[in-house]
């Protein structure tokens, strides 16, 4: 079987540390498998900016295109053209919501329906399940964040366990540190008895932690959310942040590479319900709409384990 | 800095100086010696090459051929700074100013030495500036910004600069054009003193009488060639003019018997605080009314007010018996007014546009009947004007910025003549225009009047007013001080009305 296939991963945009660790997973997996890996990404996360990259990759004749789509539908024609040439198209970390037919399979870190509840539970455990909390999100139209926030609201409203936690505001930092910071400052000024802030976005959680650190109010306001260990390590160490969550982006790349290898070599059938084993990840199941998850629950990072993670 | 070297050795000797702009040779093998301690006049028609030669001496242009020697030593004058270091200063034809800087700063700019971070001596600077201004008898607040100064005032600042930089060669390119007789006198006094100190002065002017008063020797240019250099005493006005234009000059005689019709323009109690007040006069068809006065008297402001550029605060304007309010120039034009403004550089030409487009700019409807331009019409209109006014140019499509000062002025006049206006306001129309063309201008203005146009002629040149006008209005410090019929108009009567009651000369508001 040919294991030296060419696989490219098209990120949302360059310089996004999140994709550095996904890329790491791809690279290491390819070392094991023997495939050739390349990472490309547009300078900006503009919806159309990935299209020329896709076209170019098709012309270069890669075997697998893995992509973190910047838009649920802008790339449809381009991707169809690729698949028409027999290229395997995987959406990795983010899906073509509503346009699943334009990719072969989708790899997500976790079952995103779990993200909301997990985050609420973590926040509850930090603040003793009572008090005012707020959410600092990415952009207003970010699809993932919006689904998670919806889930959080649902959990807070329906689960009696959280009846004493009140969501007082949801603000958007557009994933820019400056804007996230001013929004955080605004929250603190507007809601004096705020006890917790959930920032389900890596830029936002770092910015929020920074504000708390500078104001020296870590004991009053608890910050948590989805963050990268590399960015949050300092805040964990100086106690600004007790704990935050994420999955392993690294494993997404790892899984994607092994899945592609399996499909290209016929050892894996890309059909709903199929099971297969992946080194270090154990058994993976192809779920509804050909979606796969690298892990069941989110990983929680705190002082005890932060140093075990290198991404 | 008088030189020890032999006195008979010329300060500057130019040999075979030639200059071409874009293949057009505008100076041809000019040899010229400038002696120490002389005032040397450069005369010539518009575009003869006077300014270009001056600019070459001052390092603004490099000659395409030829050599310069200073005290017998060959020199290369690469830049204006180099010229300054050599003690050569040029007062430009169009005064140079930095509108946002104070007058004092404009005076010292470029002369101060020292490290880039050297502190600016604001106090001393202002004191020195005041001293120079007093020397010239000009009353300008040296701390006000240059912007808003009348051209005259700007010119005086230029002159003050030249004095301050103690140079051995000072070139004045038509310095007197915008000045009052009084200011001219002061300037001449200073010029003579500088000469007696052994400095050399080059004086460019179109006014023969001034040249006679001031200069020792004259050099005459025609079409970029040096025609002659001689002591002024050895040349009659006739000789000079013949040498300049290569033909004897027809003396202009005001046509008599132009029938003066009914009132075309009537202005009553026009006032604009700070600039002028209570201006009232009539202007009849076929009549040429002069508007005299010292520079800064407010004539331009009156003109600007009538033409709707800066409408007056109060007062009424009546055209052909109908009271009108003119809020914008386009309205004024619609009402048959035309205004040739005084400073062409700022408010006259469209630098980047061709001569053709500049000439036809004011008659869009003629060249574009349905809004679409007819090149053919435009070209014929333009070339006719060019022929009529003898505008010297390479091509109708040449950017007007490349023409000489005088020729630009002609083009602008041509533009307005095309509009065939019923009331024509001319603000210093012949400033910087040579005698040859002046005569043509006078004739044209006369014809226009004869053709039933009403003409308001703003001029600082008394002979011009006397020769042309049926009546002469005089302004002083923003008020009308006299309305003199042709018969009684004399230099004296006009000047008497022009000199401000308060003896000080008018200055910037």
């Amino acid at each position, binding site marked *: 079987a040919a294991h030296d296939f060419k696989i490219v991963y098209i990120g949302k945009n*360059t310089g996004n540390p999140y994709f550095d660790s996904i890329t790491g997973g791809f690279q290491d997996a390819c070392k094991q498998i023997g495939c050739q890996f390349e990472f490309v*990404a*547009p*300078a*900006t996360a*503009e*919806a*159309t900016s990935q299209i*020329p*990259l896709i*076209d*170019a990759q098709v*012309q*270069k004749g890669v075997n697998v295109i893995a992509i973190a789509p910047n*838009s*649920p*539908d*802008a790339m*449809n024609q381009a991707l169809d053209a690729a698949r028409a040439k027999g290229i395997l198209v995987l959406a990795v970390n983010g899906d073509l919501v*509503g346009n699943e037919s334009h990719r072969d399979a989708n790899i997500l870190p976790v079952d995103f329906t779990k993200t909301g509840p997990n985050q609420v539970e973590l926040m509850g455990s930090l603040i003793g399940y009572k008090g005012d909390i707020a959410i600092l999100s990415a*952009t*207003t*139209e970010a699809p993932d964040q919006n689904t998670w926030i919806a889930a959080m609201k649902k959990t807070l409203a329906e689960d009696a366990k959280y009846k004493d936690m009140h969501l007082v505001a949801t603000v958007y930092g557009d994933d820019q540190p400056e804007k996230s910071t001013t929004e955080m400052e605004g929250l603190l000024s507007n809601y004096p008895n705020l006890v917790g802030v959930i920032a389900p976005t890596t830029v936002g959680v770092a910015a929020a932690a920074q504000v708390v650190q500078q104001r020296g109010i870590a004991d009053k306001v608890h910050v948590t959310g989805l963050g990268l260990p590399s960015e949050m390590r300092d805040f964990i160490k100086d106690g600004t942040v007790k704990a935050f969550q994420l999955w392993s982006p690294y494993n997404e790349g790892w899984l994607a590479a092994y899945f592609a290898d399996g499909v290209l070599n016929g050892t894996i059938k890309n059909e709903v319900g199929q099971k297969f084993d992946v080194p270090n990840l154990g058994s993976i199941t192809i779920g509804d709409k050909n979606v796969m998850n690298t892990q069941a629950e989110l990983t929680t990072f705190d002082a005890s384990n932060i140093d075990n993670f290198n991404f | 800095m008088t030189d020890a070297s032999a006195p008979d050795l010329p300060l500057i000797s130019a040999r075979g100086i030639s200059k071409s*702009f*874009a293949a057009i040779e505008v100076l041809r093998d000019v040899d010229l010696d400038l002696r120490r301690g002389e005032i040397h006049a450069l005369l010539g028609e518009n575009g003869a090459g006077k300014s270009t030669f001056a600019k070459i001496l001052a390092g603004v242009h490099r000659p395409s051929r030829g050599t310069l020697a200073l005290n017998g030593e060959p020199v290369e004058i690469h830049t204006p700074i180099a010229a300054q270091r050599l003690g050569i200063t040029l007062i430009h034809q169009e005064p140079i100013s930095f509108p946002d800087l104070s007058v004092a700063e404009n005076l010292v700019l470029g002369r101060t030495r020292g490290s880039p971070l050297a502190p600016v001596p604001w106090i001393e600077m202002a004191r020195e500036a005041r001293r120079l201004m007093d020397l010239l008898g000009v009353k300008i607040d040296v701390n006000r910004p240059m912007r808003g100064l009348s051209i005259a005032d700007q010119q005086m600042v230029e002159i003050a600069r030249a004095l301050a930089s103690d140079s051995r060669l000072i070139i004045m390119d038509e310095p007197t054009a915008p000045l009052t007789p009084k200011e001219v006198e002061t300037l001449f006094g200073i010029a003579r003193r500088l000469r007696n100190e052994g400095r050399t002065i080059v004086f460019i002017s179109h006014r023969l009488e001034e040249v006679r008063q001031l200069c020792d020797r004259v050099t005459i240019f025609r079409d970029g060639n040096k025609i002659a250099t001689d002591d002024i005493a050895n040349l009659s006005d006739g000789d000079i003019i013949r040498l300049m234009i290569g033909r004897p000059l027809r003396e202009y005689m005001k046509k008599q018997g132009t029938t003066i019709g009914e009132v075309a323009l009537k202005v009553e109690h026009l006032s604009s605080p700070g600039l002028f007040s209570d201006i009232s006069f009539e202007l009849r068809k076929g009549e040429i009314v002069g508007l005299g006065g010292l520079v800064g008297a407010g004539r331009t402001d009156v003109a600007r007010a009538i*033409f709707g*550029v800066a409408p007056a605060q109060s007062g009424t304007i009546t055209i052909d018996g109908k009271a009108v309010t003119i809020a*914008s*120039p*386009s309205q*004024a*034009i619609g009402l048959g007014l035309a*205004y040739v*403004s005084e400073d062409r550089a*700022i*408010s*006259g*030409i*469209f*630098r*980047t*546009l*061709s001569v053709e*487009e500049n000439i036809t*700019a*004011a008659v*869009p409807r003629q*060249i*574009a009947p349905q*809004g*679409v*331009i007819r090149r053919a019409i435009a070209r014929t209109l333009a070339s006719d004007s060019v022929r009529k006014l003898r505008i010297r140019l*390479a*091509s109708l*499509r*040449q*950017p007007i*910025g*490349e023409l000489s000062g005088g020729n630009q002025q002609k083009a602008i006049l041509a*533009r307005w003549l095309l509009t065939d206006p019923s009331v024509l306001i001319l603000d210093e129309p012949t400033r910087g225009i040579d005698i040859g063309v002046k005569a043509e201008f006078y004739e044209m203005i006369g014809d226009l009047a004869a053709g039933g146009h009403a003409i308001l002629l703003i001029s600082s040149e008394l002979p011009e007013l006397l020769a042309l006008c049926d009546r002469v209005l005089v302004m002083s410090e923003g008020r009308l001080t006299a309305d003199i019929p042709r018969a009684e108009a004399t230099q004296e009567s006009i000047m008497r009305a022009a000199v401000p009651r308060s003896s000080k000369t008018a200055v910037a508001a």
Partner: protein
Amino acid sequence: MNALRAILLRREMGIFVAIIVFCAIVGILKPRFLELDNLRVILLLVPLIMIAAMGEMLVVIARHVDLSVGSTLGFAAMMTALMFKLHPEIPFYLGFPVAIGIGAVLGLINGITVIVFRLPAIIVTLGTLYLYRGLTFIASGARQIDRQFIPSPLKAMSANSPSYWLPWIVIIAVVVVLLAYWFANHTRLGRQVYALGSNPAAAPLRGIPVTAVTLAVFAISGALAGLAGILYASRWGFVNPSNTGWGFEFQVIAAVVIGGVSINGGVGSVLGVVLGVLLLGCVSAALPLLGIPGTVQSAIFGLVIIVALVIDQTVRERGVQALTTTRGARA
């Protein structure tokens, strides 16, 4: 004609040379670049910029600048898309007058602000760049309009079906260019734009209706940005409140200035701008083809802008010495 014509020719010659050189190099490295197939790719890349650049050109010639074209494009596109979403029954071609009209209005707002308050256009349109973008967010509730809401015939205008080689979107761009050429060179208003830019101080004294001309150029720029807006919906099949038209102004202005239009007003030709747009198009098409990583692309884009201008400039300088002083001072 000779003098001026000569200069103009030279101007365009410079950028023309730049294009040839660039395409030659790329063609040698990747012969595919010169294939007809790829030419179509380029032609599909440029129409939006081309159309907006025609408007920007007029604004710049009038010695103003319009930084808000990107946001105008976004707003017009969003409003039109919303209309289609809420009233699917509306025939797609009605989207054009709507988009163009909206664009014209936004342009007029720019012009009026500039005129009434005598503010520099660069800063007024910097303000409206944010303002119009914000309005797009508000109007759309920060939600993207997905492709199912964009009428299929509209999307079809960008698809280059074999039946005719050039898709509609390209043909529209060509028509706009021809109109712009005619307007700039053969209409009274067009020439008045040049005059105004050439000497704003003198313009009113010559009876040039400064207000009217200024409003006209901004309105035209806005209208063309609006047209580009609906074509964006056609080309990409969706409208996104934050992405659509983002950074567009930079590309448009780059194209205009590369095309030899003087920032100091009064100078510029349609031909030049067309070439400027094409150069940028070639570059954007070439970089991915050459497999140049995204990290390097913006560096190259920047280099191209500068190099193109340098070539243009040096070619122009030669033989136009007479003007150097002036331009030197202006540069």
